[in-house]
């Protein structure tokens, strides 16, 4: 089934909350008081060990007045707009092979932008869904950018 890969790592979300808290110069005690939760619970949440109700989750988002771009720097620069939704719908309507081509092109463009130029690219392999992971040879120590494939959905 063709879907966009969503950002799913709970650790990433926890780390992001910690980062935003520090950027806002808030201690865990201060933020947890504002959210109406225990400091120990916030600490576990930042470590990706704590699940919360929808109310609490959205209180956290509201506390930082977060857009998608703020929450996942580099993933998106602005909140999802109706145009973004339309793009997703159009992507989903493509055949699977065509979707993979789009994904590979996005991965290519990311690497290109990151390396501030066309760079020298090499296809390092495929992931489970057959999508190509593309690494930038100019910095091989970094993990390859994650391919936005339809895997696992």
């Amino acid at each position, binding site marked *: *089934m*063709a*879907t966009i890969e*969503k*950002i*799913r*790592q*709970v650790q990433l*979300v926890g780390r992001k909350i910690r980062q935003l808290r520090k950027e806002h110069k808030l201690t865990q005690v201060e933020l947890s008081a504002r959210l109406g939760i*225990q400091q120990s*619970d916030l600490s*576990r*949440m930042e470590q*990706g*060990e*704590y*699940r*919360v*109700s*929808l*109310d*609490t*989750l*959205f209180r956290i*988002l*509201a506390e930082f007045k*977060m*857009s*998608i771009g703020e*929450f*996942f720097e580099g*993933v*998106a620069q602005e*909140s*999802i*707009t109706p145009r*973004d*939704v339309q793009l*997703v*719908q159009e992507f*989903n309507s493509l055949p699977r092979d065509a979707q993979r081509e789009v994904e590979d092109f996005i991965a290519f463009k990311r690497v290109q932008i990151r390396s501030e130029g066309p760079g020298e690219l090499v296809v390092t392999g495929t992931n489970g869904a057959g999508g190509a992971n593309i690494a930038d040879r100019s910095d091989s120590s970094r993990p390859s950018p994650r391919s936005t494939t339809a895997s696992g*959905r």
Partner: protein
Amino acid sequence: MSESSQGESPEVFEEFRERWQRLIEAGHLEEAGEIIQGALAWAQERDDPRRIDGAICALAAVAIQLGRGDGELPRLREILLRNADAGNCRLAAYNISLHYEFAHNFKKSLFYARIACDRALQLGRTDWIAYSRNQLGNALLGQSFIDEASLEYQAAVELIPTPGVWRAIILDNLGYCRVLQKRFAEGYTFLYESLRQLRRYSAERYQMLPHLDLCFTHLETGRYEHARRHGVAAFELAEKIGNAEAMKNALYLLGETANLGGDTAKASGYFDRLQRDYFPDSPYLTGFLLAVDVRKLVNLHA
């Protein structure tokens, strides 16, 4: 207490008790409340403090379940502190724990659940021990202590071997834990068994719980059509009984199901409704949920 009241009280009061317990099991809480009011008046006429306290605890339990429990805490605390009757103390502590669970204060809920469990153990009543351990599980699960909670639920379910509404509710809790522990086969078994028993006993009010958890389980295992079906059933039941928390969770799960199933337009519709009806000050919410998978962050039982 007069001699005559002592003589007639066991039968009459126990009749009241059986009636309200049957109504609670069937999910008819308002009607149960009326019966308990009658029992309370009966006990007050006879100046029977033990049964007055028992009726007050039962009334509080219904009020808490209906989301009107704030005013009940002082009376429950008084019964607990007076410590006149171990059974009523257990009931008071249990209901205070329930109140804090619904208020999402799981640490306090855990504290009172432990008191309720201690009292139940002193009294040696198996069913009371089971309910208290289930309550301990709820307080632990609310704090994401999933393994510890599942141990409590496992113990509770073993103490109630006979099929029935309360066993079904505990099975639902245990099933949800198993799913969070990625033990999906067991999770499915417990959740479907819970739903079957609740249907068998016509406990419609509580069927919403396994429907929600089955929606989540099917979502976790990529069976989106099954997830959608249970999500819709959960939402309809939640709407019928006016349970806002369950409606929120159902809308979120239905949106997530549609999104993961590739129907972004439908997902937007569910997330939009969630945002509009419950989080009107968070206009970014639909976009956020379309882009970010928060399944591993969300606790449906918190």
